[in-house]
């Protein structure tokens, strides 16, 4: 069987090298996020400047990307994060990941820095460095088309950066297609610092399958399983926006930065309103039957009439509730700007709404805002700040630096109001009433983020017997409880890296529903597609290995237990609104510590969150970094 390779590219010298991936490494890390972590831990010099030539940019496809598996569309990219200084890791759907595999590569490792703008052209076993000078300065949509025209091939798929990445906005993302984005941790700024405008791929080699005759039968079986879940059906209809109604009503959402937890009269932000008034169809990523992306036409503003896709649930908060905005039209415009400029909507929403609260409280004045009056529910404020951030002007130039650096510039007394963990802003959700969610964003290796573990199923009050059957240990089926939640988060922290390493989308996995694909399903898929045999326990151990390696990366950069806590406001201010179960809630520090201890213990880490020697030996990480491949 022909196998996909790793390509090493040095942009300073122009050297390109191709290597096979040893089977032993495959078995330990699978691909995608897992193998990227191995590469980053070995190739990134500790303490290096994330925006300097010593940082390493990796981009990869999952082990099942491009194969007949449910939702196998995710590519992963990583580096030392310019936002947090810890591990940078983000993934995205679309069509790039399979195309990279069809072109013969699973992983690309990009080092150094080009002296003029370039893009990588990856095709049928070859990698070329090409001039991107004419493309530099263009947005993500134009960039992808210009690359297709440059190569005279309309089937080329690119992962690229927009103006935000070029201008080193520390939360610039990596974009592909009309809307797909590897949003978090600012990997786009790393590409920008290397003068790497895009990675373009086109392949006709395909992915060879170990048992093609079984593959289609299994594909059908697993698709049926994913579609049987009602949560999947709801997402097919409304996309991830479907979560908004319940979370807003319940009081689990950030409003006006972090001042209240439910936005009244937000009918226009409901997915039904989107669907009836703006959605003109749904789009699906490669090989995915769920098709959760809304297609729409920008309804108003300077870009009215242009086709685009989105927004996701998180963007409803980032351009909506966090600013106290109730008009979907505003969110749809903001979403389009994020799409073309290539920045992380979550980080922008949090940073900009923080600035507005600071202005409201008199912690920053007109001198700092350059005369701009920062107001809630005001389109002018929002879009002016977008422009300032992307093109690094005025206050936006400070916000573009991300939480830690902006706090240093605006004063230590502004820290209390910034909602970030490990230097990455939280999404628009309020976790004060849900201890498991709070722990999840606290321990998340890439900073405050829901996609490292969030167990949405924790909200559903499922029968304890069902939960026991699934997790293998007793779980308190009440989302306001602290007990056993350290273990629950541990389970998801070991499960999510496996799916990310396979290139499988979170939407098709156990997050919203237990009726999705578990370790056993992935064991079957991996065997049929690649002939690698695993047990479910071995897969979970791989997840543990990947998560612990990310932890080691952060520890090497100075992280410890102190970085695993939600912002101070979570412990001090009770939630003012929402349903009774969510009202008047704050996180209890003592109980949070108990969850944290429990979580560390399950991982085999000590009280300070440092992996114990026997844990490293058990996971085969005791010799890392090994600097061999």
């Amino acid at each position, binding site marked *: 069987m022909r196998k996909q390779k790793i390509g090493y590219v040095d942009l300073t010298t122009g050297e390109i090298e191709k290597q096979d991936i040893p089977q032993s490494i495959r078995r330990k890390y699978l691909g995608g996020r897992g193998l990227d972590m191995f590469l980053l831990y070995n190739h990134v010099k500790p303490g290096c400047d994330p925006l300097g030539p010593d940082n390493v940019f990796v981009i990869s496809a999952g082990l099942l990307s*491009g*194969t*007949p598996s449910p939702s196998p569309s995710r590519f992963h990219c990583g580096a030392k994060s310019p936002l947090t200084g810890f591990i940078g890791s983000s993934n995205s759907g679309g*069509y790039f990941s*399979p195309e990279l595999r*069809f072109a013969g590569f699973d992983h690309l490792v990009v080092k150094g820095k080009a002296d003029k703008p370039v893009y990588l052209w990856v095709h049928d076993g070859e990698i070329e460095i090409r001039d991107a000078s004419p493309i530099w300065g263009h947005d993500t*949509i134009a960039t*992808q*088309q210009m690359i297709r025209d440059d190569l005279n091939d309309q089937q080329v798929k690119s992962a690229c950066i927009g103006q935000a990445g070029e201008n080193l906005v520390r939360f610039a993302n990596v974009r592909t*297609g*009309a809307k797909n984005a590897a949003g978090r941790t600012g990997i786009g700024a790393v590409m920008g610092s290397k003068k790497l405008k895009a990675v373009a791929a086109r*392949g*006709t*080699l*395909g*992915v*060879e*399958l170990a048992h*093609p*005759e079984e*593959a*289609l039968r299994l*594909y*059908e079986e697993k*698709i049926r399983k994913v*579609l049987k879940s009602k949560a999947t059906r709801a997402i097919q209809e409304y996309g991830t926006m479907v979560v908004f109604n319940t979370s807003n009503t319940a009081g689990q959402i950030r409003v006006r930065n972090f001042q209240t937890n439910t936005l009244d009269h937000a009918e226009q932000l409901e997915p039904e309103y989107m669907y009836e008034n703006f959605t*003109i*169809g*749904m*789009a*699906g*990523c*490669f*090989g*995915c*039957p769920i*098709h959760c992306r809304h*297609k729409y036409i920008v309804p108003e503003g300077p870009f009215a009439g*242009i*086709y685009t896709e989105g927004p996701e649930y998180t963007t409803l908060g980032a351009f909506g509730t966090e600013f106290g905005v109730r008009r979907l039209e505003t969110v749809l415009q903001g979403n389009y700007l994020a799409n073309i400029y290539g920045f992380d909507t979550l980080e922008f929403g949090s940073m900009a709404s923080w600035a507005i609260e600071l202005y409201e409280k008199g912690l920053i004045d007109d001198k700092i805002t350059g005369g701009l009056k920062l107001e809630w529910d005001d389109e002018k404020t929002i879009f002016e700040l977008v422009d300032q951030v992307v093109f690094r002007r005025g206050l936006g130039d400070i916000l573009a630096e991300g939480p830690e650096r902006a706090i240093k510039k605006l004063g230590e007394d502004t820290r209390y109001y910034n909602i970030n963990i490990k230097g990455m802003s939280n999404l628009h959700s309020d976790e004060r009433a849900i201890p498991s969610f709070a722990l999840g964003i606290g321990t998340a290796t890439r900073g405050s983020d829901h996609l490292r573990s969030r167990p949405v199923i924790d909200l559903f009050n499922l029968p304890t017997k069902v939960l026991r059957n699934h997790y293998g240990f007793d779980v308190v089926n009440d989302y306001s409880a602290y007990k056993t939640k350290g273990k629950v988060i541990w389970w998801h922290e070991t499960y999510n890296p496996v799916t990310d390493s396979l290139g499988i989308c979170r939407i098709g996995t156990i997050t919203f529903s237990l009726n999705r694909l578990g370790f056993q399903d992935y064991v079957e898929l991996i065997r049929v597609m690649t002939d690698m045999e695993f047990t479910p326990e071995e897969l979970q151990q791989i997840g543990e290995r990947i998560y612990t390696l990310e932890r080691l990366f952060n520890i090497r950069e100075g992280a410890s237990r102190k970085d695993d806590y939600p912002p101070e406001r979570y412990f001090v201010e009770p939630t003012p609104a929402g349903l009774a179960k969510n009202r008047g809630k704050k996180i209890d520090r003592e109980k949070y510590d108990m969850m944290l201890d429990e979580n560390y213990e399950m991982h085999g880490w000590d009280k300070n969150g440092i992996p114990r020697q026997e844990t490293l030996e058990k996971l085969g990480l005791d010799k890392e970094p090994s600097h061999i491949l």
Partner: protein
Amino acid sequence: MQKMILVDATKCTGCRACELVCSVRNERIANPARSRVHIIRFDSTVFEVPMLCQQCVSAPCIAICPVKALSRDKESGVVNVNYDLCIGCKMCMVICPFGGVGFDPVSKKIFKCDQCGGDPTCVKFCETKALQYVDVTAISLRKAWEHAQKLSKVIREFTREPLPK
């Protein structure tokens, strides 16, 4: 009864599962480049359009083939390739107005849709039914129904007359 793979581009989500399963079924590899169907996707417009061999009645590929390697199956109406005769000149590929004929760089042969011998795999895996396998004679009436439905809605809105009880 002759059947055809009916394309409804308005239902296509662009997921390319059809390309994927077609290549696995027919070439035993996951490789859209060797698929008989292709989704043409434009990032800047709304539509994704599945393109494949239409099994034309007056087929340019049959007409242009210099060695008569292409022929029609009388019963199913499908245009088949006789690989014993095919010389790989690619004229059929060049003349097809739909891009329905491909060239396989591995086997050095042309390939095209044969409706998987009467049970098209792409149709089976199309979640939104953008691809359907239907009786050709029934298509016009199906389209008439769909269009009439839309039209009746519009007329109702314009006339604002109450519905007949």
